[in-house]
């Protein structure tokens, strides 16, 4: 079951074809073999995982339902609290923090559904990253080409799922940190609506833009995990007080009746031939010709940039005073710069955010889904500093998210659906109206069933 999906594993465990313990041992063995190559894990909680798996097997033996994710191994970006571990958030500084006294809410919810936590995953320092590189723990490596980036900041999450170490992982997305690794590693990722999933007991980055969500190798697994994690949580003031809106039953409804458009204008600029090819394949499969313009997308990206720089700086100001030399220099220098940005610009960015939201929501009166590239290119080389967009050489690190930032800026739900191009995959964003994750997941499922989107198995 090396490449088995979460739903296949859960079915096998529920049927008694496999024990949760056997599945867990197999996952731990794969991590031991492959992690030295991929550098996806920073901690493995083997004893805890075995104990949880045994409890699942015991409960099943006593006739209890083992849950929809029975025995499914999963791992989380190391900014999620894990009981007994310091929450690193990719940093050196947090290593001296007191170990967490409990798990993050989303870990609890996945384990309630029967999933088994096996460890914590590598990430860019304090999530201020699109590359998956980390000066303290080393770079996460792309399973499709070990010399290439996973994308970040949820780099370990991308590498662990694409490399077959686990079928399911969690990450965070402030400006693209779920969608970028999904694109570079060729897997499915869901960034839900802002406020949909609880962020409680995780280390923040930019409170007004932070989202959490799952990675998987199939759309069905995304939906399973997402459904299990929904629900209000008083511990996160941003978490919406909405009843769970379960997506799995309608996943196979297809796309009939959905109005689809391709994002033009800003989203046509800067795309590499690979990004264009992925968009063309998806558009052809869906027979979509309609193009719409997301108004002021470039300015939206700029506003997200300003808010990120300043809120990130505010969060870390005291650490910048006392432990500046312990930061990744690339992160530290951006945070220091963020501390210098005048408040008037931040306020204007937040006002513009409301304007932009109102105008983009107008588009959703007429369309159900907007398609856009996830990244301007496939995975760059680890250590690469610049790339060319439309022939213009520019810094790579801050510009990988040019297509993701205008979308997360107003919290729209997005599924990143991987198109398995050769030699490297690249994803397309399936963007829906707020609270319509079901629509984005349905479309990803339709593309998967049509053979256009899929997680290709790498030869590691």
């Amino acid at each position, binding site marked *: 079951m090396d490449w088995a999906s979460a739903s296949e594993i859960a079915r096998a465990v529920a049927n008694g074809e496999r024990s949760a313990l056997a599945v867990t041992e197999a996952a731990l063995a794969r991590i031991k073999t492959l992690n030295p190559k991929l550098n996806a894990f920073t901690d493995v909680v083997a004893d805890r995982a075995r104990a949880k798996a045994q409890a699942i097997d015991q409960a099943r033996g006593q006739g209890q339902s083992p849950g929809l994710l029975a025995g499914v191994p999963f791992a989380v970006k190391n900014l999620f609290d894990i009981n007994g571990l310091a929450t690193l958030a990719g940093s050196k500084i947090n290593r001296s923090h007191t170990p967490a006294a409990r798990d993050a809410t989303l870990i609890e919810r996945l384990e309630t559904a029967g999933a088994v936590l096996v460890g914590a995953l590598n990430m860019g320092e304090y999530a201020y990253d699109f590359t998956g590189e980390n000066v303290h723990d080393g770079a996460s490596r792309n399973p499709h080409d070990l010399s290439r980036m996973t994308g970040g900041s949820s780099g370990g999450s991308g590498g662990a799922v694409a490399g077959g170490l686990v079928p399911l992982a969690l990450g965070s997305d402030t400006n693209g940190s779920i969608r970028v690794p999904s694109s570079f590693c060729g897997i499915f990722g869901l960034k839900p609506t802002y406020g949909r999933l609880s962020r409680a007991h995780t280390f923040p980055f930019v409170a*007004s833009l932070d989202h959490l969500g799952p990675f998987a190798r199939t759309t069905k697994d995304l939906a399973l995990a997402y459904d299990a994690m929904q629900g209000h949580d008083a511990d996160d003031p941003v978490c919406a007080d909405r009843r769970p809106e379960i997506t799995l039953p309608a996943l196979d409804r297809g796309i009939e009746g959905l109005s689809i458009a391709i994002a033009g204008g800003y989203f046509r600029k800067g795309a590499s031939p690979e990004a264009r090819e992925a968009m063309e394949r998806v558009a052809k499969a869906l027979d979509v010709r309609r193009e719409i313009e997301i108004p002021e997308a470039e300015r939206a990206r700029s506003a997200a940039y300003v808010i990120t*720089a300043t809120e990130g700086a505010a969060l870390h100001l005291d650490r910048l005073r006392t432990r500046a030399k312990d930061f990744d220099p690339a992160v530290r220098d951006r945070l*220091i710069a963020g501390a*210098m940005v005048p408040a008037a610009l931040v306020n204007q960015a937040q006002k513009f955010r409301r304007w932009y939201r109102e105008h983009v929501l107008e588009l959703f009166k007429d369309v159900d889904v907007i398609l856009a590239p996830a990244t301007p290119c496939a995975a760059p080389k680890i250590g690469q500093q610049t790339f060319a967009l439309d022939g213009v050489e520019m810094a790579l690190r801050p510009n990988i998210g040019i297509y993701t930032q205008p979308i997360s800026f107003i919290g729209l739900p997005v599924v990143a659906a991987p198109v398995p191009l050769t030699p490297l995959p690249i994803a397309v964003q399936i963007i829906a109206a707020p609270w319509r994750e079901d629509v984005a997941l349905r479309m990803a499922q339709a593309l998967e069933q049509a053979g256009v989107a899929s997680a290709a198995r790498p030869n590691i």
Partner: protein
Amino acid sequence: MVRKVLRKNRSKGRKAAKPNKPKRDPLDDFIVAGARAFDLKIDEAWMPAVRGHLQVTLRHGALVAAFALPDDAEPAPVFKA
């Protein structure tokens, strides 16, 4: 005046050997003052990167600031008592 400066430079040129001090970016004064206000210690070696990032962020900020919004536009986060 111009001749004077040139002459001055020529005579300096003859003495030569003194390397030209790199021109200080005006933004550096802003960063130094800001760092002092925030009690941040910035190593001289970090300055080019900090300046570069600040320049980029201010460019993004200028694009946002150039967008005309009405006086009664509310920021996105609305506090509820």
